[in-house]
């Protein structure tokens, strides 16, 4: 908005509908006659735009979902019923398919067994290693404790030395920003 700062509007600021009607009356008298019929029809003929598809009512997507799920269930039931009829009827193809399924099951079961054995061997080896490491740590515990205490004492001593050195240095350092009197020339340096 040009040249118009934001300002709070209070009820007294509204000049009212009559004021606006009176102000804008000249615009109400302003009309415009044009003829775009030919222009639009030519454009429509040239482009032949397809009218946009009808938008679906709000509940249609829900209906579509329910119908899809229902049809899926019906297909599954039909498939299972067909398979059941084939198996019960002693169909050769069904027997072959069943043999294939049982073979695949056996192979899968065998593979899983092998995989389980390998996993168990790996776990037992890891456990043995962990147990050995624990025993070693248990044996070396006094030594480790002694080394830890020594390290802690050394650290504390180092801190104490540092504190002492810094304290001495701070006391002996000149004060920053303070002008000192030159003892030789008798003025400020």
């Amino acid at each position: 908005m040009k040249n118009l700062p934001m300002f709070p509007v209070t009820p007294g600021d509204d000049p009212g509908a009559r004021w606006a009607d009176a102000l804008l009356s000249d615009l109400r008298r302003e009309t415009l006659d044009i003829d775009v019929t030919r222009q639009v029809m030519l454009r429509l003929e040239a482009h032949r735009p397809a009218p946009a598809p009808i938008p679906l009512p709000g509940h249609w997507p829900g209906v579509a979902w329910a119908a899809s799920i229902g049809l899926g269930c019906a297909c599954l039931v039909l498939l299972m019923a067909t398979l059941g009829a084939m198996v019960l009827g002693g169909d050769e193809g069904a027997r072959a398919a069943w043999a294939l399924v049982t073979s695949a099951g056996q192979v899968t079961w065998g593979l899983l067994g092998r995989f389980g054995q390998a996993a168990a061997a790996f776990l037992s080896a890891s456990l043995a290693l962990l147990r050995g490491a624990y025993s070693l740590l248990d044996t070396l515990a006094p030594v480790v404790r002694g080394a830890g205490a020594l390290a802690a004492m050394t650290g504390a001593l180092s801190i104490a030395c540092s504190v002492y050195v810094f304290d001495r240095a701070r006391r002996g350092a000149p004060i920053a920003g303070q002008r000192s009197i030159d003892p030789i020339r008798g003025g400020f340096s």
Partner: protein
Amino acid sequence: MASEPTDLELVQEVLAGRVEAFAILIRRYQRLVATAALRMGVPRQEVEDVASEVFYKVFRSLRRYEPSHALSTWLYRITVNAALDHKRARRHDARSEEIPASLADGGPSQLDAAAGRQRASLLHEALQRLPDHYRSPLVLSHVEGLPLDQVARILDLPEGTVKSRLFRARAMLKTIIRRHYPGLAPEGAFETSS
């Protein structure tokens, strides 16, 4: 003599494939669309393009037309949107070109007409200073003279929102007129407010 087909009948004919029926709708509403576009601030020389675009859009989305509302309401909505799009796309004011070159040419009636055109031009300028979302309800309500419920339908806003926007739009317009166009103010406008 056969009676004129209603808007709904014409819409149904167009949807049934008789595209020629759309020409009747264009002839019926092109003045409304052009005038509304002009009043929304589209420069006079560009109104034809905007009106043409409006009718093209109307044809494209004719299936979405809800017969429960008047076709004119829908046309107003599309025109307002097209005018705002046009303004955003062009960001310049061509209205200054429309001010008559000389007010001294011609007799008294021509002078009156010229003064009226100049006043209208200045009013358009003043309206252009309002933000779009305040100008639209103001023009629809106080220039087009539409009732509040129809303005709300056109702008797809609750009536309460339209009311508050009208209130703020009038207050802003009053400030604009007072600061920049004091000569346009209705007589005694700033002394009394209704």
